[in-house]
């Protein structure tokens, strides 16, 4: 087994554990590379079946190509897709001009919270990775959230030997992070190895590409000529900038992500 085999086996073990132990379960799918890898892993874990729904929290500010791609893949993979928007916030004109952190909270965090409440999920599977940013590096694989989706990060339960937190009071839910230990290069190497379909926004056009995908207004491109996965991997091996450097909300405050994530942000 090489390093990627080991990561894949761990992620599949985690997915199966959440399916067996967590009651009502959903998987967040943001259309980006990480959650698409997660979608692929779940197909592998359950031998081509999808025993739980996929969820897309649509902020209505997404890059239009993402929505088009979302509907295409959902059909191709035959997945049960829940699309939810915090319509009230959209109707009241919410957008990054209200302040980026306020906008993220309303359209993403609150939108997600509405899904959890409406569908009474006990577990949510998310494609976050510990190398993305500081507060994610502090995460557990099974991470508890209270009924308001808040994360008590100063008092996390121990997690060892792949024995996860599967006991929790009704109303709380568990955020499951099956690819927490993967890094950005692992993701790309795996996409290449498994030939996973991916949205073309990641590949360079006119000397620019997206390294991380989000809402149109708050996601910047990087200068790049990488048009193949090999070229992307080569570029990443030599880069000195962070993956989320193009994500404007992260730069709002020294502890922006910690603050967003404490309240339930993914």
């Amino acid at each position, binding site marked *: 087994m090489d390093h990627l085999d080991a990561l894949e*086996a761990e992620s599949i073990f985690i997915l199966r554990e959440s399916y067996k132990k967590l009651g009502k379960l959903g998987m967040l799918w943001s259309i980006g590379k990480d959650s698409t890898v997660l979608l692929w892993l779940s197909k*592998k874990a359950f031998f081509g079946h999808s025993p739980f729904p996929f969820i897309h929290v649509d902020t209505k500010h997404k890059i239009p190509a993402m929505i088009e791609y979302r509907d295409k893949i959902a059909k191709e993979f035959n997945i049960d897709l829940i699309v939810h928007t915090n319509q009230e916030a959209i109707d009241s004109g919410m957008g990054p001009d209200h302040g980026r952190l306020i906008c993220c909270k309303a359209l993403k965090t609150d939108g997600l919270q509405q899904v959890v409440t409406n569908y009474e999920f006990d577990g949510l599977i998310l494609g976050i990775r*510990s190398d993305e940013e500081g507060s994610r590096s*502090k995460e557990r694989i099974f991470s508890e959230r209270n009924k308001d989706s808040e994360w008590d990060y100063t008092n996390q339960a121990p997690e060892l030997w792949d*024995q996860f937190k599967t006991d929790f009071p009704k109303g709380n839910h568990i955020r499951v992070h099956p690819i927490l230990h993967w890094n950005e290069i692992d993701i790309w190497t795996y996409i290449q190895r498994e030939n996973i379909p991916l949205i073309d926004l990641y590949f360079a056009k006119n000397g620019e590409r997206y390294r991380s995908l989000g809402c149109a207004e708050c996601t910047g491109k990087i200068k790049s000529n990488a048009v193949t996965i090999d070229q992307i991997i080569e570029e990443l091996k030599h880069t*000195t900038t962070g993956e989320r450097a193009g994500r404007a909300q992260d730069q709002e405050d020294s502890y922006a992500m910690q603050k967003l994530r404490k309240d339930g942000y993914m």
Partner: protein
Amino acid sequence: MENTREVLRIVAVGHVDHGKSTVIGRLLYDTKSLPEGAIDKVKRIAKETGKPFEYAYLLDAFEEEQKQGITIDTTSLQFHTDKRDYVIIDAPGHVEFLKNMITGAASAEAALLIIDAKEGIQEQSKRHGYILSLLGIKQVCVVVNKMDLIDYNQEKFNVIKSQMNAFLKNLNVHPMSYIPISAFLGENLTTKSEKLSWYSGETVLEALDLFSQEEGLEEKSLRFPIQDVYKFDNRRIIAGRIEAGSLNVGDEILISPSNRTTKVKSIEAFVEKDRVDTVSAGMSVGITFEDEFFNKRGEVISHIKNAPIVADLFKTNIFWMGKNNFVKGKKYKIKLVTQEVECEIVAFNKVIDASTLGTYVDALEAKTNDVAEVTIRTKEKICFDKFAENQNTGRFVIVDGYDVCGGGIISGTVESTEVIETSFSKDEVKLPINCFDEYYFDIKALAIKRKLIKGTQYKIGDNVPFLGESYEYTKDFDVIALNASLVAKIRNGKLIDVLAVADYSYQNLVIINEKGFGINLTSEKDLSSYIDDYKEGINEIFANKWLDFIKYRIIEFRDIVEEILEYEI
């Protein structure tokens, strides 16, 4: 190719403020593993908070961590050398966050144990050393940091080295090297230090490359715990991760504990390229059987020879992280691979203060951060191996309420199927006692020795042995057990009540403690001072003031006294 590179997970442990995060932060900085902006961000934060620049801030991402200058929760970061990639895990050193340290260390294959040269070996240096031994981490390198604060003094370094070595030796932990460094100044971290020219060994980075990856799980006996059974289509797939050994299509297999045998019909896969006839340790797989039984999560598949142990009683070494103490008689949940079953402690063989290796005998509970040797009984039989033979199937966690509160490793089974300690019980309340044990003077050994009696549970109405070879309590007496906060009343030779100490009032009768020593009480007032004094703990002052060994006992001579130390029949 990137994907064929080896990845090793290492953890940095040690006492608070001895510089774990600084060692890692500097290592990342020196190996140019930090994204652009990371150092600038830390510098900006240092400026904003008016504090000096700290490499540690690179890891301590939480605001609370940076403002207080301590690591609260574990972090992992990646860097690489020419040899391989590393995931380095930063574990908190503060005793309050031991559970987070354990969470971080449990996934590591090797460890750096960091000690402050100026402060020397502290409580957590030792406790973390002990935890490493319980986690089965054998590859350890001790790093003596802040050598600049002791002027790079070789003698002081040697003192720390020999003291720590003596401690770790008792735990069967044998460090591969002891390295003097200054992490903040970068001495001996990635490049050899001129200031430490008396040291000829490797730098920290070189030492990391000398660690090797754990191998050999494939060569062990097959252990495939069933994680789930899927019936999404016409296949009935047994899913799970192979914890040890390997499995082939056509193999005859045994399913424990139900003890049924069948053959492997197929190994299933989602995509054609993954289709194989052999799978081995570490893989998450799905198989089908030739015969269809009712299978369930928790059963363990092995080959017919070399099956796992199936038992409901075993000896363990545990570490306790719970807020509530780990107590005898209470029901807990044990999770061992995919098995989950109710369990209880039947005997505390030893409770150990991990920072001193001091032991408490006759303990009735383990407190937060204690380690202990306990005998556990599960409600149903479970499958396992001794930890020394198979780490994955020889370790478990204990769940108390909603949280994992303890972890442990299995040292062996208990031969007898019935282990009973002597106790008085009323409904669910149980008071463990030793007052019917016999004491004799061993002429050859020149020592007083205790002989445990056969374990018996006395219930309300049962006759008790108030007259022994070495004691006589009369037919009416009270047993006050402050360690369990309970009192038992014996009237006319029978147990009539077990009640809380708080509900008990002084009686003018024979009064003994749970070990059968007379208690010097003559009034209700004495009773409350006795209880007050106990709060300080038992020591010689307390014992000599309140207890009288031979008040109701005699010590006879015996040629030989065979001590029995286990509660076994």
